[in-house]
Structure formats: C-alpha cells, structure tokens
C-alpha cells in the first residue's frame, strides 16, 4: 500500500532573538511509520517538534496535516489535528493525580474522573502499560511519569505521536519495552516521530531517519539502507573518528575510600544505602544507573553537601598517606583541610555557576573567601577567566558576559575549566557532556583523560553507556541507592550494565568484584 503523508513541513524557519533555531526545514512523516529525527544537541530538533505541537509558532513556512495546510497556534490546535507530543521534561502537575493530569485541558464531554479512570485503564490494557490512576505525580518514578505522559496523549486520540528523547531516563530493558509498544502503535497505523541523538536506537527502531544539523535540514534516508558512519557524517558534517583514547592507569593508589554510606532525603526515604567503594588515583571510575538512583546524593555526600545517617568517607592524602574522614564536614572545612576536591555538578547554571554573573565573578565562586579582607579581590579571578577563555577556546564576547548567554558547550568549558584550575586530586563530574555537541563532548573527554594522566582520581557519572564503556577504567553500577556491581570497563558489555542497573536489591552483594 502506498503510505499517506501524515504531516509535512515546508520551509520552516524559527528564530530566537538573533539565534536561528531552524532554517528552511522540510520534512515529511507518513502514517504507519516510525520516523527518527536525528541531530546533535542544539541542532534544533526539539524546537522543530515544538512548532508541530503548538508550543512555538514558526516565523516562516507552512505545516500540512493530511495534505491540508494547518495553522497550529497553540497546543490545543495541535490536539485538534490529533498531534500529541511527549516532552523530554515531563509536563505534569506534581500535586495532581495521574488521572487528573491525563484529563487536563480536555474540553468536550462531562467532567467525570471516575469514567475517565475507566477509559485510562482500557488504554493501559490495550498497550500493556501499568499505571495507578489515583497516584499523585510527586510520588511517581520517572518511568511511571513517562507512562502518564504517553497515556495522556493517547487519551486525546492522537494518531501523530512525537517523543522527545524518550529513552534518556530509561534502562536498556525499559527502552526495549517502550520500543515494542511504539512498534505496536505503528502497526496500528499511527505516525510516530522520535527525537534522539543515539544512533543505535535510530537503527533498531525507525523506518526512516531525517537528520538536522545546526538548525538546517540535511536529508532523509531509509534506515535499512544506511549505516552508523553515514548518519554520523550527516549529523556532524564531516567524517570524524568516534574513538576515545584510553590509557592504562599508572601507579594507581587508593585516593578516596567510601565505607557504608547511608543517606536519607528530606521525606525520610533512603537514597543511599550502605554504599562502599574505593576511587583510585590515575583512573576514571564510572558510575552508571537509572537517573535518580542516588548518583547526585553520592557525589554531594563526598563534597560535603549531604548529611550522612551512617558511614565514613576517607580521603587518603597523596603526600602523607594520612587518612582523613570527610564525614559531616562542610565544603569550606574540606577545603581548609587541604583536600583538593573538584566537583562539576549536573546542574551547571543552577549549581556550578551563576547564570546572571559574568565569567570573572563565576571564577570567584571558588576563591572569593580566601584572605581576611572584608572586600573582594577581582584581579586573580580575572586572570583565570582570561586563561580559561584562551586555553579552552570559549566562545564569548568577553570575560564580563553573563554565562547564561553562552551556549551549553561554552558554559561547560567555563565550569570544567574552573574546577580543573584548582589542580584537584579528586575530580567528580556528573553528566559532563549532557546537551553538548560532539566536538565539545570530545574536548571534555580529553580534559578528563589529561587529568587522569596527572594522577587525579576521577569519578564520572554518565548516562550514555557506550561512552562509559569506552572512557572509564572501572564502572560502578548503582540501583535504588545501592551498589549493584562494580565491573571492569574493558571486559564488560552494555547489556551487563543494563541488567545490573535494574537488579533487585536482595542480590546486590554477589557482584562485589570491584
């Protein structure tokens, strides 16, 4: 049968201020197919899809739905065209129940939560979801929230589904389950568009791939007729080697020894449960796990930002071999003890840097309290800012530009640059390449490898298992706040790590072969 175009974009252009997010993009998606939109971070995939779902309105160009021009000025218009989008950052009201969230904004028919709950159950059964409709969103896990999002769209009868990076928060096993559901929907005749930057997902799931680069449409290929390297070339624009140089650890000694750390969140739930491991100098220790399994709390515990209910964190001084307990010390006390601990947190502009301050003032974050003067010294931070801008090729109008106006990659360079400038002995990085383009990502990997060569103990929290396996020396897997295994990165596979990520708590100990 010949496929019908469900949605067509013609010469779509969208600008934000001076930034052109999409330029003359043309795209067609058919019914009964899964189309991948592939592109690097910042290539305008999400912006493009937001225009189909009515969040943004294009500056130029036209959108056709089922061959007729459509004006989608608001998400409501999108629903009328049976378009539904599942956003990467879930759009759910925390204090509402799942059912309330699902019926939110629907206008026809009587408002009857009971009846809606029944309909929700029917949809859940049809596609094999598992959902408690009465549960409040704030007590849900990430994958439950995603289920709510998908059912929300199906409940509205959408037959064009857009999913923005749906697998970023899922384990390999959950991903496979989602993919099989998506394939069912495709066979139902729905049009599925999935935004991603993961090549293997594109190849395993989609029928066709459209590639965007820097806001521009590059081309569309049939998945069956393409290869990973061709897609990469389309995405990046030139052929590049995607190999990370990994050296063998040299003169590795114990640097940080974490013993039986347990930690609660504000509601009193255990977020870290008896965590023990050792980080060694001159090696990169990767930490893998589903988002929200305790990675953040673990790093914050070491940095002195979490209160521990039990356990110790010992730092072994490289010069004196003395053991120092970091438990219950504040970041300032840790610094005063002479422990050179650097930390690149996950939330760059919300934690590592201050978006509204310029680069110089951001350099000062780490050093401002030095000395006894009541007043600030701006000379040294200014020199450091200039050095980082120069050495790391930060693209900025100047050192006095607020960092929020830099692009994601440059923000990260400023942050990593500052943390490395403190010549650390322990360096912790959380999701350091999230949202970065390929070139910036590789620059970060190289910086980490340089530090490793210098004998720094590096703890790397990552989400992309391919990168973890290629970059790290050992990988520790964390699941629900427990260590479920520590494996040699050179010997392991993604599947093994994926299994460890979802491993049940009971058999966590058997795999302690680190």
């Amino acid at each position, binding site marked *: 049968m010949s496929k019908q175009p469900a949605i067509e974009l013609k010469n779509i252009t969208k600008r*934000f*201020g*001076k930034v052109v997010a999409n330029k003359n993009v043309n795209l067609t998606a058919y019914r009964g197919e899964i189309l991948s939109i592939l592109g690097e971070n910042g290539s305008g995939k999400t912006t493009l899809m937001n225009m189909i779902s009515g969040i943004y*309105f294009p500056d130029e160009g*036209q959108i056709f*739905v*089922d*061959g*007729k*021009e*459509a*004006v989608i*000025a608001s998400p409501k*218009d999108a629903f*009328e*065209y*049976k378009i539904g989008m599942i956003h990467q950052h879930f759009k759910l009201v925390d204090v509402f129940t799942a059912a309330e969230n699902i019926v939110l904004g629907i206008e026809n028919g009587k408002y009857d939560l009971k009846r809606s709950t029944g309909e929700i159950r029917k949809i859940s059964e049809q596609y094999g979801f598992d959902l408690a409709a009465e549960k409040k969103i704030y007590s849900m896990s990430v994958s439950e929230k995603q289920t709510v999002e998908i059912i929300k769209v199906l409940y509205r009868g959408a*037959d064009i589904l857009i999913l923005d990076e749906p697998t970023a928060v899922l384990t390999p096993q959950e991903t496979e389950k989602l993919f099989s559901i998506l394939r069912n929907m495709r066979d139902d005749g729905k049009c599925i568009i999935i935004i991603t930057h993961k090549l293997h997902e594109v190849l395993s799931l989609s029928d066709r791939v459209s590639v965007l680069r820097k806001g521009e449409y590059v081309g569309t290929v049939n998945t069956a007729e393409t290869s990973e390297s061709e897609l990469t070339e389309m995405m990046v624009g030139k052929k590049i080697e995607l190999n990370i140089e990994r050296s063998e650890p040299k003169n590795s000694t114990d640097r940080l020894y974490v013993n039986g750390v347990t930690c609660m969140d504000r509601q009193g739930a255990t977020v870290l449960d008896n965590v023990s491991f050792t980080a060694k100098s001159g090696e990169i220790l990767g930490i893998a796990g589903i988002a929200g399994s305790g990675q953040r709390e673990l790093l914050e515990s070491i*940095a*002195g*930002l979490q209160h521990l209910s039990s356990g110790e964190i010992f730092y072994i001084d490289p010069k004196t071999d003395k053991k120092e307990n970091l438990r219950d010390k*504040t*970041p*300032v006390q840790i*610094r005063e003890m002479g422990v050179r601990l650097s*930390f690149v*947190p996950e*939330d760059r502009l*919300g*934690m*590592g*840097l*201050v*978006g*509204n*301050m310029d680069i110089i*003032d951001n350099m*000062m*974050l*780490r050093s*401002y*309290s030095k000395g006894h*003067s*009541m*007043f*600030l010294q701006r000379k040294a931070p200014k020199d450091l800012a200039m050095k980082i801008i120069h050495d790391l090729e930060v693209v900025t109008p100047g050192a006095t530009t*607020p960092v929020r*106006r830099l692009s994601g990659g440059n923000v990260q360079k400023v942050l990593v640059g500052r943390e490395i400038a403190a010549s650390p002995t322990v360096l912790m990085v959380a999701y350091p390449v999230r949202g970065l383009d390929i070139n910036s990502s590789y620059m970060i990997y190289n910086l980490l490898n340089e530090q490793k060569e210098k004998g720094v103990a590096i703890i790397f929290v990552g989400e992309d298992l391919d990168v973890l396996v290629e970059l790290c020396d050992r990988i520790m897997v964390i699941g629900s706040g427990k260590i479920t295994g520590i494996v040699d990165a050179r010997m392991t596979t993604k599947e093994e790590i994926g299994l460890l990520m979802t491993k049940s708590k009971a058999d966590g100990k058997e795999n302690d072969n680190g």
Partner: protein
Amino acid sequence: MADTKKVKAHREPLVHIVKRDDMPSWKAWLIRIGTIVVSIFLMGCLSMMLTERSLIDTFEIMYRGVFGRIETGSTVMLWKYLQEIAILLCLALALTPAFKMKFWNCGAEGQALMGGLAAMVCMIELGKTLSYPVLLVVVIVASVVTGAVWGLIPAVFKALFNTNETLFTLMMNYIATQIIAYYVYIVGGGSNVIQPVAEGNLPVIGNNRYLVNIITVALITVLMYVYLKYSKHGYEISVVGESQNTARYIGINVKKVIIRTMVISGAVCGIAGMLLVAGTDHSINTDTVGGQGFTAIMVSWLGQFNPFIMVLMTGVICFLRMGAAKVADTCMLNASFADIVVGIVILCVVGCEFFIRYSVKFRHGKKEVKA
C-alpha cells in the same frame, strides 16, 4: 478523518512577543526616563482637567510645592524636599540587600516603626537620667537593635522552615502598628498624641533641622553601594539570591547569610525610624512612617539594586508626592490626589520594564493557501 475536522480560519497570532537579548543600558534608561517624563506629563493633563488650570500653571504649582520660592532666598521647602528624599531613600536602601537576596522584605514599615519606638522609649524613659551623649548613643543603639530584631524574626523562620517572608513581614507591620498604638495610648493618656520630647534628639547642624538626617542617609547610600558591590558579604548575597543551590555548592552557609542580611536590612530600617523620631518629629504615632515603607519597596525594586539610581527614583517620587499635594491643596482637591499620581507613575514605570525585556513584533504579509 481529516474532513471531519472543522476547517479553521487562518487565525495566526497577530503580535508576537520575543525575549530580547540584553538591551544596552543607556537605551533601557532612556525608556525608563521617557516613561517617567510621559507619565508626569499625563498627570499634569489629569490635574489640568480636574482643576481647569493650564498645564504650565499646574507644573508651576508643582514646582512651588517642592522647591518653594528659592529665588527669594527661601530654602525651607528645598530642605523639606531633601528630608523627604532622605527618609524614603533610607528605607529603600534598607530593603535592597534583602531584595538582592530575593528575600521579599515587605516589612520596612514595621521595622522602621519599631526602630522609632525604641528611640521614643529611650527618650522618654531615660531622657531625664542620662547625660546627652550617653543618651544619644543609647537611642541610636536601641533603634538599630530593635529594627534588626524585627527583621530577624521572619528571617529565622525563612532560614529554618522556608516560611513565606512576603506575608510574614507584612503581618509584622501591623503588629508593630498595634504596639505603637498601645504605647501612644499609655503615654499620651488616651489622647493618641505624644507631646514632642526635648531629650535625646539628634544634634542640629548649622541651624538646619534636617541636615543630620540628610548627611546620615548620604553616608548610608555610599556604604550600601560599597557593601553590595565590593564586599564579600555583598557577593554572598548575590549568589544566594541567584541560586541557593550554588551557594550551598561553594560552601556558603545560606541560613547564616539570610539571617545576617535581614538583620542589616532591619537595622537600617531602624535607623530610618530613629531619624524620623529622634531627628524629625521628636514624637511618634502609628502614622509616623506613613506608608513610606511600602513606597520604598517599589523604589528599591525600580532602582535595580543600585543605590545611586535609587537616589534618582526617590527624587522623582518625592517630587510627585509633594508637587501633587501642593496642586491638590491649591486647587481644593482632596489630598489623596498625591497617592493617585504616585500610584499611576509607578504602575507606568513597572509596565515599561516589559519593553526593555521583550520586543513586540507584528506579523504581516502572509500568503493565503487554499485548504
């Protein structure tokens, strides 16, 4: 499927709002000052309609109301104007560190009243027993400490439990008002008036009763500028205000900063109250601060955390207030005319920020496409 959908008219958004990149500050100030000038002009027109006087007449009256007859050598009104600026500015300055920390201190009124009350109590109770220099020190310390305590209470709860400070500080104002009412009733013997007290007043410099106040506030202005811009405390305040997470990350004790900053904020409010009581009225009633604590919130916010811009803003607002009062007085309008004028001008200036942060684009020239 598709044909069941109702065919939509081509209703595209006509106007389109875009967030601007940072506008050059001279341009932003041009817009702000332009707005002020235009809104003052409109106010002139409004009073022209109400009073049936010409526009020039109206502004002439406003000018007289603020500066008096300077050409005849009389500077009484001018000093009064400067005094008004000083008090409002002092309150606005007090709020600035708190606002910079994103702590909505709406309690300047109460903090100043309590500072003033402390001064009053000392003047009355200790005025006869202590020598003047000692009494003066006691008066100053008492009002600073009392103002600080009034700011400290909501800050402690904010730091410990994240209690909403906007509403907390608002409530504290009315508690302060009632305490004053109580005290005035006791001392005034039910007459709601305390006769001016001669003891413990601030010194008078060069025969000018307002000069001490003005000099004090000028000093506070400079100190506050330096404190916010060049001191480590000021830096900590900005970091806490921008992101508490970042503050935690670099080891700033957020609770300590919140409490310390509110103590400073309350203390400066206390000074303002002291200037009003010991430096100006030598008496107190529930209306001593006269709502300026609220006006100060707007001034501080409009001044963008910059003390020197706040000087300008207070200058404008006091000009309007005094000028409009004079117009009302001369033309037999109700005295509340001044409140209306100040309210409208502030609403205009608040509104004009939109055009600094966003730009509005109109869509045009779209070709029709057959559905």
